[in-house]
């Protein structure tokens, strides 16, 4: 033992003691994020919940939805809207030559589920026994119902999720719910939500601020009732429910028709008395005005050129009668631009797949003179429900339930008088009135993303698109539903879940 160098051993011990001094703190490797909020501590109040409701709208106003993709998927794919492009994903939406990895089909699909997941988190994480939480839980239910209403009508049978994603399980067995199951889910959610939502969020001011109200839930519910009364669920008992719900909205006294049809589409007027629910777009982000603004065919005609991605259709223009204010309120026939002379639509754009077509008047406003400000962005949003739709739902449901009654015809005429169009007279058959109502949907709502959904529920989509000049190039009955995007299968979704035909 005397061979040992005690001094060195002592020194080593001192050093080890010194080192272990630094190891005292057990939680040295624990993470305590100071700038992050997680589901465990958020939301805890109405103020917190408002942030989530606001954040939830972000994917909706961006180009993955309202500012571009949704317009292609729900608008360009109908028989009323056309595109400027002559090839590529955009053109494919108009021609029905799209593939399963079309970017717009993917973005709408993904955005719907992204919003559903946020909405599920509101429903799951808010304390349902607290009074303040109820409108927000109802908001969550509204949002997810709204998104499922798109999924079921654009993609058909869909995967149904009603809880937020908390862990990723790649071995989970995934199935799709039928259209009927999804409609039932939506209707159940909205029936629960409608009375927990406020009449309006903004106090006495009835202005639409993008958050769902009782009116919004009832409109969506009415729409879902009449949609499930049609193709493919065909539950005709729902006609009367839709009728009642539309009447509830009319009786609420919260909304009224704006006197001037065309002015309603100005940005300054977009959240006023006729607006029940809309996608609000920040002025620095919105691309709709620029996307609908014409380009020129030859020079000097249009002062401030747009991208003209989305265009109207000449055939549709001709179906509007000249004394109907909605003709000029819907179509951009002459672009007025002081001090330059007006430009006729025959001078619009220079590469046209379909010849010269009128523009869409409903999205022309920038709410300023110098459109290049904000890098051509504007606050132009998409109106999801405006009050006029309650009248159309009422008219259509009344005609289905009680026949061509005065009640049904009055509802239509309320819209026609506002537009100074000829009145419909009493004494027509149920079929005749049905035909008139179908047309009225277009006169009132052309380019407001109603047409494709209507064609589907009326069961006429195959006939219409098979003979449409553009869709004829690619349409087949299985394309009434879009494909589940390829990206889902790339991420491991069972290929047998693809919609039939794709």
């Amino acid at each position, binding site marked *: 033992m005397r*061979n040992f*160098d005690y*001094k*060195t051993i002592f*020194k*080593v011990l001192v*050093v080890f003691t010194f*080192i272990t001094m*630094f*190891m005292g703190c057990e939680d*040295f*490797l624990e*993470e*305590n*994020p*100071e700038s*992050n909020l*997680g589901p465990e501590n*958020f939301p805890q109040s109405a103020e917190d919940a408002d*942030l*989530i409701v*606001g*954040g939830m*709208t972000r994917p909706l106003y961006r180009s993955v939805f309202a500012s571009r993709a949704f317009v292609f998927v729900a608008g360009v794919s109908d028989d009323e809207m056309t595109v400027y492009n*002559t*090839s*590529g*994903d*955009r053109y494919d939406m108009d021609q029905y030559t799209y*593939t399963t990895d079309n*970017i717009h089909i993917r973005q709408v699909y*993904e955005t719907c*589920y*992204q*919003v559903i*997941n*946020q909405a599920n988190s509101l429903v799951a994480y808010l304390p349902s026994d607290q009074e303040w939480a109820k409108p927000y839980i109802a908001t969550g239910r509204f949002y997810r119902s709204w998104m499922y209403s798109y999924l079921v009508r654009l993609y058909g049978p*869909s995967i149904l999720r009603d809880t937020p*994603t*908390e862990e*990723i399980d790649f071995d989970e067995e*995934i199935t799709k719910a039928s259209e009927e199951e999804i409609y039932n889910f939506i209707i159940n959610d909205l029936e629960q939500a409608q009375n927990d939502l406020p009449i309006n969020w903004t106090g006495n001011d009835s*202005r639409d*601020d*993008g958050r769902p109200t009782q009116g919004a839930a009832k409109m969506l519910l009415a729409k879902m009732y009449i949609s499930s009364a049609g193709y493919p669920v065909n539950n005709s008992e729902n006609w009367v429910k839709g009728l009642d719900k539309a009447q509830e909205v009319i009786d609420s006294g919260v909304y009224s028709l704006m006197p001037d049809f065309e002015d309603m589409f100005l940005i300054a007027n977009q959240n006023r008395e006729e607006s029940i629910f809309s996608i609000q777009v*920040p*002025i*620095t*982000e919105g691309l709709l005005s620029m996307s609908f603004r014409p380009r020129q065919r030859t*020079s*000097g005609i249009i002062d401030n050129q747009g991208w003209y991605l989305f265009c109207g259709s000449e055939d549709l223009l001709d179906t509007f009668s000249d004394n109907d204010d909605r003709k000029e309120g819907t179509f951009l026939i002459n672009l007025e631009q002081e001090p330059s002379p007006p430009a006729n639509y025959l001078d619009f754009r220079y590469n046209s797949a379909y010849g010269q077509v009128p523009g869409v008047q409903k999205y022309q406003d920038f709410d300023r003179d110098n459109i*290049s*400000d904000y*890098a*051509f962005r504007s*606050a132009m949003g998409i109106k999801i429900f405006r009050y006029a739709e309650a009248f159309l739902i009422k008219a259509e449901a009344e005609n289905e339930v009680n026949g061509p009654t005065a009640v049904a015809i009055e509802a239509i005429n309320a819209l026609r008088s506002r537009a100074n169009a000829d009145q419909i007279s009493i004494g027509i058959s149920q079929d005749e009135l049905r035909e008139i109502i179908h047309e009225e949907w277009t006169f009132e709502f052309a380019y407001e993303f109603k047409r494709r959904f209507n064609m589907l529920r009326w069961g006429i989509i195959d006939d219409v698109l098979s003979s449409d000049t553009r869709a004829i190039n690619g349409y087949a009955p299985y394309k009434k539903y879009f494909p589940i995007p390829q*990206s*889902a299968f*790339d*991420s491991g979704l069972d290929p047998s879940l693809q919609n039939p035909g794709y």
Partner: protein
Amino acid sequence: MRTKKSKIFITVQVVLLLFCVNYVSAQKTVTGTVMSKDLKPIPGVNILLEDTNTGATTDFDGNYSITINKSKAFLVFSYLGYVTQRVAIGSKRELDVILLEDTEALDEVVLIGYGSSLKKDLTSSVSVIDVKDLSTGQTPRFEQMLTGRAAGVNVSSVNTEPGAALKIRIRGNNSLTGDNSPLLVVDGVLGGDFEALNPNDIESMQILKDASATSIYGSQGANGVIIVTTKQGKIGKLSIGFSSTGGVQKVRKKLDLLTAEEHVAILQDDPNFDFPGDIDGLTNPILSGEGTDWQDEIFQTASYQNYHIDVKGGVGNLRAYTSIDYLNQEGVIKGSDYKKLNGRANISYRASNKLTVKNNLAFYNTESNQVRTNEGYGSLGGPVTINAASFSPIIPVFAEDGTYNGPLNTASIRDNPVALVDNLDDLYTQNYFRNVLSTKWKMSKNLTYDFSYTFSNRTIDNKRYTSKILRRALNLGEARLDNRQINTWQLRNLLTYKKNIDNHNFSVLLGHEMLENKSFRTIIEASGFPTDALGYNAIQLADQILEYSTTDSVNSLLSFFTRFTYGYKDKYLLSFSARADGSSKFAANNKWGYFSAGSLAWVASEEPFLKENSTINFLKFRTSYGETGSQAINPYQSLAAYSLGQLYSDGSGSLNTNGAIIDRVANPNLKWETTVQFDFGLDLELFDGKIGIVADYYNKQTTDLLFNRRLLPHTGIADQVQNIGSMENIGYEFALDAVVFDKDFKWNTSGNISIVKNKVLDLGGEDDLFLVPPSGSRGSGFSTTGILRVGEPIGNFFGYVADGIFRSQEDLDAIDQPGGVIGDVRYKDISGPDGVPDGIIDDNDRKIIGNALPDFTFGFSNDFRYKNFELNVLMQGSIGFDVVRFDKGRILNKERFDGWREDNTDTNIPRNGFLGNVANSNYVEDASFVKFKNISIGYNFSTSTIEKLGLSSLKIYVSAIDAIVLTKYTGYDPEINSYSSGDNFQQNVSIGYDSGGYPGISQYVMGLNLSF
């Protein structure tokens, strides 16, 4: 056991005995001369009486004189670039010494992780960069010193902006989402800042490449390690060094673009353009002659200045090295520049024979004005170089009323390039401070304890103001302030035990490290400025806030490690290391990672059958195998979180900026990436060391790749960082050093070649992963231009294969290509939905159309010396790789003029020179290059001249840097990587994109180095 113990005892006794004898010795003076191998005196050699503070320095003639107060003592002779020699004095009073140059010596000491080793005893793959060779030619960034110097180390100037970092890859890319840059260890402290290193302050540099060398760095070692030591003062005369460099920089190559006259001709022919109606908005068009040369309008000949002063010396127990350095580099694009001031103070105090205390302090301050390059279009207004190449020459810079002219297409968001250069203030400032306090305690003859504590602080501050006149600021004026404060402390404890017993050498290392990194970031962005006058200095003028956020982030690392080495007769060598790392970044289930490595070497030249061989002086075979890790993800990635600060509107006209959205779900299993590497190599020296060869083969596999896995859409979450997938890199390296002539005319040459074969092995079940680089803003046809595919390397471009143009109606009828018209690009029908060509051009016809990884890279350096002159030529090459440039078909290049027209049908250039509205092979170019990185001629003034001037050395030189580049690439610079400053994933996989980069630069400088 008994024998061993008694041996230890005897050793201890001997040491004690020596101590006693030393203590009673008498005083004497020893003199002598220190010379190099060719018997030339070496001035300035540092001489130290071992274990004391007594020292001396040789004079101009290599003579020294030192007073010795003990008899059985040793003198230690050391000089930069020479092997330190320890000589017993014995009874001698005169002692002449010959010092061997480092390169000639096998006994060179090489720094390895947490220690050092003799080069001949190394069992792992380590490259040593000879710093002395690099004294000619300026290198403002430390990374440039490595360019082309070492096999397996690829340094590329992916961004030529002044002050921009270079990309260093050691043995390829291991990670997809993690940082692939090597770990920098400066003076023993992990995680150095490349910018903090001044090339003039560097004493030695080594690069650890294989797992055996890097595994001791555990979770930080996967990408290789660069170990640098900085200069220290020497006992003896005070020495002051001064160097100054000045010169000019120019754009190496301008793009050949249309003149006004040519563009007018094209516009007149364009059926979609009404000429002159469409240029009505332009009040003063130039319709003939050259027109505006937008490149000349934004480029300039830029100046370059660098001054460096260092003072070094030592008295008694104290040694110091201090330096200060100033760099001022203008950019070749107007308005861009880089200024850097940095300093260092290294002080070492020998408290006793056993205890040394050191303090190394370094700081820097940089200020850089930036211009917009390397970005998409969209609302950003376009990168300035692309705008310059696409703005029509018929547009004058200014309209008649003195305002900037806009683009011909008024709907375009693109800004006038001159307006962009003049009206966007983008100031990037950094302040950095690091102090390393360390002690070395020789606890006993064999045992050393090292402690060090490091504190560093870094502030990164970016202030930007975009004028109201720029469209990118939405015509509103926009200010953005972004400030990051990063504080780091690190602590290290090391115990090293070394022992030689007869023919057995062994060493044991035990270590402990802790690190904590705290950062705080503040961002404010606001717009709507009534006036541009105050810019970002008065953000309170803005009328709306676009973004405001603060982010706090903390991460910590706790580590224990050990290494054992053993050598028998310097012939059979063995090393083993292990490390345990605990990191806060990783999930609860995987906090700790364990990494180990082993290596073996056999010095065949020590065997009897080679020992007397006159050709082969040294031959060593070595092999290693081990694991390293990478923890390169951001903190908190394993935890669920809301993304805060989402912009939304409530329809009232004002913006809400505080929305919350769930974008991350918890991953309780998140952990390290692990790289397993096998290496086999040999070191060979021939003909008295005149030729040295190092060759290596390695095979690396990285598993548990951290990867943003795309989730099933119905989860509502886009992706999640998971440990999935694997990637392999197989490589071959060969390096040769040779002394070709070593008489009056000296010629040293060294070269290296590296081949890395990268392959993605697994992407977590997906076969293909389409990449969406920011090129998407060029249109929907450019949204997925890259692909990661299992079985293929990273860096693949994906798109259609161009097949000439449609020349006739028959061509058009032959294939169904949507939107195709005569004169357009025609694409090849590669495949259809059933895997065979179907006559339709659609997504099925897309394939891999190029790859951005080179087949091989090389470096080649030649040093010529004749009398006082020296010439150095350094070349770097990268062969067999592609770059994609989607702006090629949009800018106004001359090809446009030769495009298909009614009257010019015999051409393969499409109408208007437009190369297609989808990603296709027309945009891909072979970018192989050979760059003359440096051609430098220097003159060393002779000793007699220097003495007259009272100096100890004086040298002047001229250098041409990147002046000659051999390449077929038609863009500005083949080394471009526009996404090099993107996130790690973009940096790693979106390589080879030229998206409006800063142009390639040639520098011509003159320099002066002197010391006294």
